[in-house]
């Protein structure tokens, strides 16, 4: 089976393209409208993190977003070839505090049940985001 995917330059102006694709994928996956919005925002945030942190705002690199749609799970995989993510990058700061960053991770965790890096990837990062579509999901 061929999984749908999109490859974009690491330029923020292409994030809207990612959002449009994710919105369609969410509809194809039979997610509710609210869930589609949450997943779209989360994938946008994850790609924005790649641009800022993995590629240090170099807009001429590559981001690959791949979707694996099954009956029970929507999996989104985001590949880059930039700097390795820090091991503590999933540690959230408390919600509700007045600060000028750190909100994106909360929005990613809201949309997906499982968030993890594929540690077997040698060059760059492969972020795997899984959302369960059945009662096992807490979303």
């Amino acid at each position, binding site marked *: 089976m061929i999984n749908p995917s999109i490859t974009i330059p690491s330029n*923020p*102006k292409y*994030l*809207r393209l990612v*959002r449009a694709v994710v919105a369609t994928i969410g509809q194809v996956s039979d997610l509710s409208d609210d869930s589609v*919005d949450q997943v779209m*925002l989360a994938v*946008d*945030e994850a790609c*924005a993190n790649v*641009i*800022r942190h993995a590629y240090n705002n170099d807009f001429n690199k590559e981001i690959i977003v791949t979707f694996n749609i099954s009956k029970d799970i929507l999996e989104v995989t985001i590949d880059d070839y930039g700097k390795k993510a820090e091991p503590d990058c999933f540690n959230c700061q408390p*919600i*509700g505090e*007045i*600060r*000028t*960053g750190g*909100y*994106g991770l*909360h*929005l990613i965790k*809201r949309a997906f049940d499982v968030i993890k890096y594929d540690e077997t990837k040698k060059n760059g990062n492969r972020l795997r985001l899984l959302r369960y579509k059945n009662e096992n999901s807490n979303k």
Partner: protein
Amino acid sequence: MKIVTNSFKSGIIVRLSGDIDLETSPELRTELITYIRKKINPILVDFEAVSYVDSSGIATLVEALKLMRAYNGSLKLIAIPKSVIEIFNFLKLEKVFEIYSDASSCG
């Protein structure tokens, strides 16, 4: 994103339209900082025609809020669509900002 700014009472109203994301939030930040440096008060930000806000947009507004507090300025957010206010609520920021349904109810 488009930005249209007009005077409003003793301050200004910044009307936004389109998406506020990693591409466009720097432009919003520049606009707000320009007026904050002049200690304009109040600054109203109108979201009626905004379709999308990501965390960089939220962070831009939080930064503006903090900077305005230094001179007792007031940042008021108005006409935030349901899909966007839901993000403020999730991040527990709905009580951090002054949020109004429209400009006439800002006082």
